[in-house]
């Protein structure tokens, strides 16, 4: 539990520091119901409704520093999810972090990349477990994790040249 | 001429005895396993599943012999035969009764050990010849296992030779008197460690026959089926039969060396029935152990051999020598 308190306090700071290039981040931004895409920044979400305490959106080039920071806080990378937002022509990569050392804390880190050039830095040198998750995300969605040691076919056959989870995939 | 007829009769007898044993030990094992595991074991073929071995044999024989592409053909083909031959041969020296010995050798014990160690070689041949990596690992394992176990086994056997002063198996039995305290297990007057010696020999024969917990050569959890992974049909059948033949030999030898062979525990009616009783009891123990324990690792096995069995057998050898010299 001691690690819990600094985490809560530190996270907004981190995001602000990272979001500087992106303009003013808005912590506690309103939950977006509207069409325009969500701005980078931190939202405190209601755990009972969403299943996460903190929701952070960052630039794709910030995922490594975010992972480093959360690793320093003793958090675990639970899973990496890719979402194909075909309308916005974007991929979203969602990192779910959780804390296993005591009181519960779930942090969602999300980053959006361009769908035409889906490059995002890998975090598997920080979290070994990210290796398989990123490999799977690459395989099923075609998001390229730059610096990943082994982007080979994993769940699909070796000769698969399609990305089944893309929304424009036709079997 | 008489001798020739006698030998022929014995050969037939051994063949019958062996055939029956090989078939029905499999049945005993499966039935035993069933009951140890709250099951019933074979039941459908014949009364109590007694015809199961026949059905199994027919099935194995009717199968096509397939030689894998990677196999070393001559070695692959001869390994099952090579493993079977010495185990059959060894029955020649076993004294079933005082006068029921196919052939009395005055070096029976040496012959036993000489041929018994052939099994390891044929397993290696089978493992190598199969051209399968699992088989190869199993083959090397089996050989190093045999090497590790023959040392304490031989040392314990030397004990007996020291006590009896003979290598003739029948003579060894004869010298163990017709009462239970005269058996070599309980010959505390020769060495107080004799029961331990028996235990060492028993464990060694477990390892020698590649039975659980020492079935490293064929541990199905790691090496699929070990040295006989690539064998099917009667090739596999011969390996299975050789395992049971070795089992019979190992238990017979233990009976002869430690449990007084055909001698009766109370001095009544000595004869082959006592021998068979003791041997089958030992076999039953083997089955019982197999269905109780998990398998050791290779390290565990070598540890056991070098840390416990060899020191104990050496100490026992010294003690025996001392006792014989002093008393």
């Amino acid at each position, binding site marked *: 539990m001691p690690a819990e308190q600094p985490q809560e306090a530190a996270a907004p700071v981190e995001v602000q520091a990272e979001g500087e290039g992106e303009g003013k981040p808005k912590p506690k931004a309103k939950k977006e119901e509207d069409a325009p895409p969500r701005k980078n920044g931190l939202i405190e979400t209601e755990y009972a409704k969403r299943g996460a305490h903190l929701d952070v959106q960052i630039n794709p080039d910030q995922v490594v520093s975010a992972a480093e920071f959360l690793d320093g806080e003793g958090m675990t990378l639970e899973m990496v999810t890719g979402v194909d937002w075909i309308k916005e022509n974007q991929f979203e990569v969602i990192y779910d972090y959780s804390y296993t050392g005591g009181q519960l804390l779930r942090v969602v880190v999300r980053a959006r990349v361009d769908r035409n050039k889906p490059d995002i830095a890998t975090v598997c040198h920080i979290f070994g477990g990210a290796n398989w998750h990123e490999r799977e995300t690459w395989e099923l969605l075609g998001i390229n994790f730059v610096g990943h040691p082994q982007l080979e076919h994993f769940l699909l056959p070796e000769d698969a040249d399609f990305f089944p989870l893309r929304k424009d995939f036709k079997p | 001429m008489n001798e020739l007829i006698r030998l022929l009769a014995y050969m037939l007898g051994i063949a019958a005895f062996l055939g029956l044993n090989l078939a029905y030990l499999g049945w005993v094992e499966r039935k035993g396993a*069933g009951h140890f595991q709250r*099951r*019933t074991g074979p039941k459908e073929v014949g009364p109590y599943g007694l015809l199961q071995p026949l059905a199994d044999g027919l099935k194995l024989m009717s199968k096509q012999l397939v030689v894998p592409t990677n196999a070393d053909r001559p070695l692959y083909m001869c390994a099952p035969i090579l493993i079977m031959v010495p185990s059959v041969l060894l029955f020649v020296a076993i004294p079933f009764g005082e006068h029921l010995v196919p052939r009395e050798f005055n070096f029976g014990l040496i012959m036993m050990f000489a041929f018994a160690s052939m099994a390891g070689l044929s397993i290696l041949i089978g493992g190598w010849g199969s051209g399968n990596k699992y088989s190869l690992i199993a083959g090397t394992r089996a050989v190093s296992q045999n090497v590790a176990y023959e040392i304490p086994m031989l040392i314990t056997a030397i004990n007996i030779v020291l006590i009896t002063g003979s290598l003739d198996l029948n003579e060894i039995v004869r010298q163990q008197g017709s009462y239970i305290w005269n058996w070599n297990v309980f010959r505390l007057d020769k060495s107080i460690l004799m029961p331990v010696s028996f235990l060492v020999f028993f464990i060694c024969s477990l390892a020698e026959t590649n039975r659980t917990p020492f079935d490293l050569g064929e541990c199905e959890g790691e090496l699929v089926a070990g040295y006989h992974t690539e064998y099917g049909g009667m090739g596999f059948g011969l390996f299975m039969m050789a395992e049971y033949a070795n089992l019979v030999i190992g238990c017979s030898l233990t009976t002869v060396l430690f449990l007084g062979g055909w001698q009766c525990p109370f001095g009544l009616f000595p004869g082959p029935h006592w021998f068979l009783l003791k041997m089958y009891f030992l076999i039953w123990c083997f089955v019982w152990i197999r269905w109780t324990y998990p398998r050791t690792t290779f390290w565990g096995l070598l540890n056991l051999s070098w840390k416990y069995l060899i020191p104990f057998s050496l100490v026992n050898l010294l003690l025996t020598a001392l006792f014989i010299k002093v008393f």
Partner: protein
Amino acid sequence: MSGYFKEIITGLKSLAIGLQITNKEFFTKPITLQYPHESVKMTPRYRGHIELVKDPQTGTHRCIACGMCEKGCPTGCITVQAEKREGVKGKVLTAYILNFTTCSLCGQCVENCKPEAINFSNEYNLASTRREDYIFNLLQKLHPEGVPEPEIDPELLKKEREKKEAAKKEPAKKAAAKEGGESKAEEKS
């Protein structure tokens, strides 16, 4: 050194305990049930393949061919075939085809069924080497000796005939309606 002997003794003891346990089990009665000779009683909630429920009042099924089961099925293993008959209220079920090879026994169909016309059967002895054996016509299963004809309601028949005659006066409309109905029936079959 004492540790060495202690190790041996505890080790041997543990081995002896193991042998004791298996020995005890050896003499207890086996729990095996010799399956083909004897079998367990199925619990009433056992989920076999679905079946049409026989309504004790009418002696036949309750299916109104609404197709909710077909829609709710995740694997699309149900096909309901029905037709409109003269003088009968609603649609008449002609075949209820279940492709059991793809059924996952989830129960969505049973839950979706408003008139509670389908239920899980208790049948578990299904074994075959042919795929076609698992494509059941549940209606036939319910009435193996032939499906009874639905009762014709004379009043309804009269009304329908009247309607038809009224429709006859507008031939264009009628033709269109008939065509639509036919094509629909074709689709189903």
